[in-house]
């Protein structure tokens, strides 16, 4: 009992996120009964899987006290590259597996470059990643300007992504595996410990023998990888890739990390919280469209939500700091 209580006080913001998600879900279901049907929940979970995957990278980067604004076009790059190269190289069947690896390698490389700039050249993370975002945007748009921008995903891949196993969507299964891996990585491995150490205080981490710059660079590389993976999942889900497909996801990926109780200055929070934040945002998304709220107010609501989440995390941290 004592242990449970301790875990609760330590992760109260995360528990809070899940409670809000549940309350919102029940609230909407009362007014719109079709909201709670199995089919709709399945759709929402698939959306959550994509957003959650993208938010992995943002979680790592924010945990070390940075931010990655290149996620949107990283996502687009991998999606567009996947469908265009598949067609251009005339691949068939399951050969797309190699292409997936190639796409992920490219986006990871972009993440590495971000990390190099931020960690080794001491650049402001926002400037570095936003500049990088613009560069890859320029490259992708210029490369695709000759032909039809985008294309369709291979049939086998599309079938896998929309398919279900034991009535559970495959993408959700993939996400569950990812959640397990990331949680273990953050909580139980030296690498995860070092991420928290760097986020809490770079100086202390440095004097404790952590290679601060390398850890920072790796966090950005993971963010690039996650951006690419999210793009591929998105491409599989809707069966095609198009320019600008990542644009809404920049804001959402930051918001879910903040809602999940991760401190924006780094050092506290975890991926389970981000998952809770993702569920909240996805439910909110379908809530807003269920009640036919126009796009303008959606934007305003998202902004207020992000502000509120960050402020809540702040005040809770202050309270805990006083207790300790």
């Amino acid at each position, binding site marked *: 009992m004592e242990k449970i209580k301790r875990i609760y006080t330590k992760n109260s913001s995360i528990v809070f996120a899940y409670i809000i998600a549940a309350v919102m879900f029940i609230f909407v279901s009362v007014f719109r009964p079709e909201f709670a049907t199995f089919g709709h929940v399945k759709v929402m979970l698939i959306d959550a899987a994509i957003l959650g995957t993208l938010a992995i990278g943002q979680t790592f980067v924010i945990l070390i006290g940075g*931010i990655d604004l290149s996620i949107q076009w990283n996502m687009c790059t991998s999606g567009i590259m996947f469908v265009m190269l598949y067609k251009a190289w005339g691949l068939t069947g399951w050969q797309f597996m190699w292409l997936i690896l190639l796409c992920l390698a490219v986006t990871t490389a972009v993440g590495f470059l971000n990390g190099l700039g931020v960690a080794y050249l001491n650049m402001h993370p926002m400037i*570095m990643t936003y*500049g990088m975002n613009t560069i890859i945007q320029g490259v992708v748009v210029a490369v695709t300007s000759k032909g039809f921008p985008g294309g369709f995903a291979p049939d086998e891949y599309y079938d896998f992504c929309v398919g279900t196993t034991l009535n559970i969507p495959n993408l959700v299964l993939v996400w569950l595996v990812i959640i397990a891996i990331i949680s273990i990585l953050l909580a139980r491995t030296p690498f995860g410990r070092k991420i928290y150490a760097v986020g809490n205080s770079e100086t202390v981490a440095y004097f404790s023998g952590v290679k601060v710059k390398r850890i920072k660079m790796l966090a950005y590389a993971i963010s690039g990888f996650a951006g690419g993976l999210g793009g591929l999942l998105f491409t599989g889900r809707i069966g095609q890739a198009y320019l600008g497909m990542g644009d809404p996801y920049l804001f959402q990926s930051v918001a879910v990390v903040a809602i999940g109780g991760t401190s924006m200055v780094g050092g506290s929070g975890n991926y389970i919280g981000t998952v809770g934040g993702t569920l909240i945002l996805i439910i909110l998304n379908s809530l807003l469209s269920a009640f036919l709220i126009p796009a303008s107010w*959606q934007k305003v609501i998202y902004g207020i939500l992000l502000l509120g989440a960050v402020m809540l995390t*702040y005040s809770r941290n202050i309270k805990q700091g006083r207790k300790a």
Partner: protein
Amino acid sequence: MEKQAEKRSFDVKATLQNGLTYSRKNFDQVLPFILLVVVLVLISIVQPGAISGKWLANKIDGAMVLILASMGQSLVMLMYGTDLSIAGIICLTNTLSALFMPNTPFGVIGTILAMCLLGVVAGIFNGFIITRFKMQPFIVTLATWSIFDGLALYFLPRDGGNVAPLYSNFMMQRIGILPISVFILPLLILMWSWLKRTRFGVAIFAIGRNETAAHNSGINVNMVKLKVYAFSGLFAALAGTYRTAYVASGSPTAGDGYVLLTCCAAVLGGINVASGRGSLHRTIVGAFVLQLITDLLVFCGLSTYWTSLIQGALLIIVVATNSGLDLLRKKRNLEV
């Protein structure tokens, strides 16, 4: 005494040498002027005869939105902050002034003042949350960017609006060959010359160098930050209102590109985020250079797709060189 004598006789060699030493030590501060000359030379090579008084006047008109917006961004960046909500404020003021400006002299002036007030309030809102809750500027301004963008979209779902002809005609008229915007430039230059000598200006630099030290030496850090974000909002509002006259229409997505552009202009102008150095005068040059680079690319026949690529690359290269040089300098200082 000797120095004065030298100055009077104007020793060319010594002046040149002084200049060289200065530029080597302050490469980031000289860079905007070098770039300006290089770009102008390149333009006159690619398109001989393109550069004329009229052309330059048009360019200043075109660059004015960016110049105004970058002034605010530079002030914020001098304090090791960033203001993403500039984009949202430009959208909001652009749409509002395009929609609701009456076509009378007092109406025009009143609307401009109202827009400025709106910008200041928006900036104070940013600054209040950042200082009161001690939060990262980029996360707060990312959220308010979304809020302002949403409001702009609510007022004007798609490009359009009916701009008061009186206003846009007045702003776009030529006095001789000089556009109105040319008269705004000296105002901006004077403002910064005055501002950097005030307590407030000095406090901005102090906070940019070392926030704790500034606090310990008795500067009200939170108040200064609040004021700087208010200034940033004011300049963004001016930029948005100016855009209404320049484009003669409102757009709810007009500002979104300006996050990158203002950062790029500030950095090109030698605002060094890491060391807190820079000057708003050079930001003006930086913004102008950025505008000219876009034209240069068009003259070269490159499609507009490449513009964003080049802008992004320029931003990263300049920041990387500046912070790389800073690191080297620090290393050398430690070794000596």
